[in-house]
């Protein structure tokens, strides 16, 4: 919210306090000054100039050569505006001036062959208005050579203050001034209202009925008759345009002024346009339509609070008026509405209508129910003063359920317990009193604090403690450089995934992080996707159902950038609706699982002096998966299955099981899937369900005796039928071999014409040992010979000659 320093000074004496000091104190007490403009600084070089002569530029139709004087010296200035005339008083920017619009410096220039020393400015270039059609022509009474800031009283500082949602009381100049009185120990000066009332009794010309007392606890009104709708006087226009509002007419400007003065939103009705001269406050029953004063028809929810007259709706309470009862040029009699509405009712309506006005913004945060009458009277006073007219006698103030000041007890010891430091009782009392709260000391430890209705945020003792802390300054609270450590608390739920990341790095993989929000065709690829009901775009409407599509998308992006060789991993959560569920209404309706994915594509080794290009293949991903499983000590617990069909994603793949549960799955991604991602090279992926992995009971490691006796290693090779699977043979050998056979590995595999079509050669290496003695060649040889026979027979294999 914009706050004007000059305006603030109406309510607090800030004499002798620097601007920087004010800004710091505000920021450090919770009213954060995000930005500020010091007009004095901004306009320091501009001066009131006088156009002595003007003639057409010889080389340009639209340009004028002017002679501008600052009273001491004349300058030649080229001007492009159509309205420049000899005899005008204008805003002259001498060389070296920074122009606010565009933030550029005026330099000596040559324009179409004629020199120019400075610039004559338009309103928009100065940031003083929107007019860019011509130069700004100043009042002829201004003194030539005077500083523009003095001439136009541009000596203000406008601050942009971020008001947190709990502090609606600070959404006004008096509100901010009140905090300043506590910060600088000053008096708050609230404008006194004294009204000259006419003989017309308000009750004879208007009446008010509240039907929905819950949502409208108070409605105050004043009537002013015989007003004249005009442009506002200069001071008023300056006040409200200074904080970024557009002047409309005197009545509207005054209601805005009072709102920004004391925080109470006001609405002015044309009394003669109110049917029956009556206001009825009630909520809509069913769905209703209403045309607001911006000429838009809007659909209202049932139970929307409305301001009505005898005939129908005239305004959406607290949000916006309708076309029918607004202030028009011919309005004579005005009814001023100053009400307190239930914040959540206004918020509900404004959310639904997606309309946030200065009024609704305040109402939904909570205005001061105790201040409605004052605000109505302050408005009436200003209307009578500025727009003429007479104030009808008396006010209408319907206040069915009075909202009282709140009282809380503050314990000094509690302040110390929460903040960790002691603050003097005297200081505490002063802070509360400056903030408008009355205090009564009940005992040595306790004070009773009466909190006025404007402080909607203070509801408990802790809120009072916050007031003490923020006004006395957080900097004054000590910074204790030690904490006590409770033992036995150490626990880290991220340890497992941290370990996994280390292993992935060791495998040469880089970690990626994807956005889990995806378009439908990504999310639907792998599961039963959950939809976001208010997405930002159609591309982020669904939650991912696996990590696969996101990762393929990353592959695509990298390929498009010429990066073809990728070895990546991601750890992230996926979301799936459970079978048969359509919506999420409990935690049982969906699964959120943590997944790890490996991705390999392109070349493992690029062409090098020591090697040819080698591309990633299935055995790379399989090898990584197995090394990983080994590293997390699950190598003996999981079973593998291999498939070459029946999967919508993979052409062929490996599945890892723990008992019956699938805990990992992956292989070569099908071409038609890759096509959807515009990928034209092989991609290998493997996904692990980390939640499932974590649940597998890990057997803690035990030391295994190191071998003290030699191993015997023998090898043989057979020619098999081509379809024979390595694992079938190796398992067979392991089963049939003696107890001494501890390890079987494949070390060579090939096909060639010489061994015959539909044949292949597999060479095995067999490792024998016994942990308690040296093996004899004989016993091993016997087993080995036996295996040769068995394998030959079982697989119809031929031992290769050696």
């Amino acid at each position, binding site marked *: 919210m914009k706050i004007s320093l000059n305006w603030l000074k109406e309510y607090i004496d800030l004499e002798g306090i620097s601007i920087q000091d004010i800004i710091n104190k505000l920021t450090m007490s919770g009213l954060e000054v995000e930005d500020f403009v010091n007009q004095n600084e901004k306009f320091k070089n501009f001066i009131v100039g006088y156009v002595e002569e003007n003639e057409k530029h010889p080389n340009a139709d639209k340009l004028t050569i002017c002679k501008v004087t600052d009273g001491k010296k004349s300058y030649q200035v080229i001007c492009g505006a159509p309205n420049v005339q000899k005899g005008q008083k204008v805003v002259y920017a001498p060389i070296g001036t920074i122009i606010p619009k565009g933030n550029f410096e005026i330099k000596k220039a040559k324009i179409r062959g004629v020199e120019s020393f400075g610039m004559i400015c338009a309103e928009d270039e100065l940031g003083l208005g929107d007019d860019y059609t011509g130069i700004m022509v100043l009042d002829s009474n201004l003194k030539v050579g005077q500083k523009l800031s003095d001439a136009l009283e541009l000596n203000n500082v406008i601050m942009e203050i971020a008001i947190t949602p709990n502090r609606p009381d600070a959404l006004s100049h008096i509100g901010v001034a009140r905090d300043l009185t506590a910060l600088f120990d000053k008096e708050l000066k609230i404008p006194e209202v004294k009204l000259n009332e006419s003989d017309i009794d308000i009750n004879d010309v208007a009446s008010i009925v509240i039907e929905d007392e819950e949502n409208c606890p108070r409605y105050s009104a004043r009537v002013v008759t015989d007003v004249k709708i005009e442009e506002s006087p200069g001071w008023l226009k300056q006040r409200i345009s200074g904080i970024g509002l557009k002047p409309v007419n005197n009545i509207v400007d005054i209601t805005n002024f009072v709102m920004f003065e004391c925080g109470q939103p006001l609405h002015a009705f044309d009394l003669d346009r109110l049917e029956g001269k009556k206001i009825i406050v009630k909520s809509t029953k069913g769905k209703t339509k209403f045309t607001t004063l911006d000429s838009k028809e809007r659909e209202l929810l049932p139970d929307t609070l409305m301001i009505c007259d005898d005939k129908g709706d005239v305004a959406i309470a607290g949000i916006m008026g309708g076309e029918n009862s607004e202030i028009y040029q011919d309005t004579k009699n005005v009814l001023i509405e100053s009400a307190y509405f239930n914040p959540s009712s206004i918020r509900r309506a404004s959310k639904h209508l997606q309309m946030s006005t200065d009024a609704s913004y305040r109402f939904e945060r909570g205005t001061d129910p105790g201040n409605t009458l004052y605000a109505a009277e302050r408005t009436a006073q200003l209307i009578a003063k500025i727009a003429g007219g007479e104030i009808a006698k008396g006010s209408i103030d319907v206040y069915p359920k009075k909202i009282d000041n709140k009282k809380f007890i503050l314990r000094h010891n509690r302040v110390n317990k929460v903040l960790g430091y002691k603050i003097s009782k005297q200081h505490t009392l002063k802070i509360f009193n400056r903030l408008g709260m009355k205090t009564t000391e009940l005992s040595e430890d306790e004070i009773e604090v009466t909190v006025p209705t404007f402080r909607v945020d203070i509801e408990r003792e*802790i809120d009072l403690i916050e007031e003490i802390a923020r006004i006395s300054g957080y900097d004054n*609270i000590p910074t204790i450089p030690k904490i006590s450590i409770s033992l036995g608390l150490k626990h880290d739920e991220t340890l497992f995934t941290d370990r996994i990341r280390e292993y992935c790095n060791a495998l040469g993989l880089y970690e990626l992080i994807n956005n889990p929000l995806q378009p439908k065709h990504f999310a639907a690829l792998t599961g039963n996707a*959950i939809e976001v009901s208010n997405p930002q775009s159609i591309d982020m409407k669904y939650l991912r159902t696996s990590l696969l599509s996101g990762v393929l998308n990353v592959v695509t992006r990298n390929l498009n950038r010429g990066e073809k060789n990728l070895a990546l991993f991601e750890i992230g959560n996926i979301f799936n609706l459970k079978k048969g569920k359509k919506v999420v*209404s409990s*935690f049982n309706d969906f699964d959120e699982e943590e997944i790890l994915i490996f991705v390999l594509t392109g070349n493992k080794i690029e062409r090098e*002096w020591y090697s040819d290009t080698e591309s990633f293949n299935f055995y790379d991903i399989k090898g990584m998966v197995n090394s990983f499983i080994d590293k997390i000590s699950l190598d003996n617990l999981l079973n593998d299955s291999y498939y070459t069909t029946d999967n919508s994603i993979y052409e062929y793949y490996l599945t890892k099981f723990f008992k019956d549960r699938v805990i990992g799955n992956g292989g070569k991604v099908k071409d038609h899937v890759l096509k959807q991602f515009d990928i034209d090279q092989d991609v290998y992926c493997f996904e692990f369900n980390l939640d499932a992995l974590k649940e597998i009971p890990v057997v803690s490691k035990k030391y295994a005796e190191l071998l003290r006796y030699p191993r015997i290693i023998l090898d043989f090779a057979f020619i098999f039928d081509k379809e024979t699977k390595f694992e079938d043979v190796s398992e067979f050998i392991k089963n049939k071999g003696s107890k001494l056979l501890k390890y079987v590995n494949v070390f060579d595999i090939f096909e060639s014409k010489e061994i015959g079509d539909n044949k292949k050669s597999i060479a095995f290496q067999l490792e024998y040992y016994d942990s308690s003695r040296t093996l004899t060649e004989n016993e091993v040889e016997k087993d080995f010979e036996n295996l040769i026979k068995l394998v030959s027979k079982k697989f119809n294999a031929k031992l290769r000659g050696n």
Partner: protein
Amino acid sequence: MLAQNTDKVNIDFLKDLSGVKNADDLEQIRIKYLGRNGVISKLFNQLKHVAIEDKPALGKNLNLLRSEVTSQIEKLKSSFVSQKSKGDLQMDLTLPGKKYQIGSKHILTQTLDEIKSIFKEMGFSVHVGPELESDYNNFEALNFPKNHPARDMQDTFFISKDFLLRTHTSPVQIRLMENMKPPVRAIMPGRVYRNEAVSARSFCMFHQVEGLYVDTDVTFAELKGTLVSFASQFYGEDLKYRFRPSYFPFTEPSAEMDITCFICKGSGCKICKNTGWMEILGCGMVDPNVFENVNYDPEKYTGYAFGMGIERIAMLKYGITDIRIFFENDIRFLKQF
């Protein structure tokens, strides 16, 4: 006898090996020495005839010989493969070394790790929770009533009326306190979502670390101490800081912590909006309403909580100006860290 034979076989083998010119020659040698009826097999056969006390040593020697022969053959074999057409390669030590790739964690993970290790040393445990949360855990239990303007502070992606994508990791605080009696001292890292337009400065998803400490005598002064200690470990010893009052529904009093802008060193620049300060985290004393929601006695216990955005910290620390680059996963970006 056997020992001498072993040595002789070794010498013969080396001689034979020096005569090898191609892979075929090598295969012949392999069969001669390692074949089933090869020289070494025969030596093993002789092992049965030696005295029992000599067996272990001789057996060991034979095994050594076999593995030596095997590895020599393998070595030569691979050189036939890799030399290919390049002919004899003179040792040129200036050739680049072979490439090995170690991979890396995402820079956001690395940043989080650094933060985590600082707090773990201070005795904080680490907890996580789900991203798809209930409205109750994300808002109501944290003192954000329905229809309250405080909800505007966190634009939310809704899944249904009562479920949403968590807007902060604070629901993990609720889950933790519901399941544990004080003292509680934990940090909660995780992914959060905000329904904000994607731009260079903001993304619809980002990461946070929050912290929580509840015990019988936890004070604001300790909160300041903890966070100043964290900041000086993370950002540097000679750091200037300030705590500014702010508002979060789940803490009271609430604060934001600023440190000197490290772009301009406090003199004012575009990044810090000319204030000279940079906000790094939000914090405060746990609101008594939150304690009541998790059945902690607010009279007995006090606590503090804090939270920070990891992307923001990483951007400041590494000079990244566009948040979107974190999630593009361009391999050239990933490899930089």
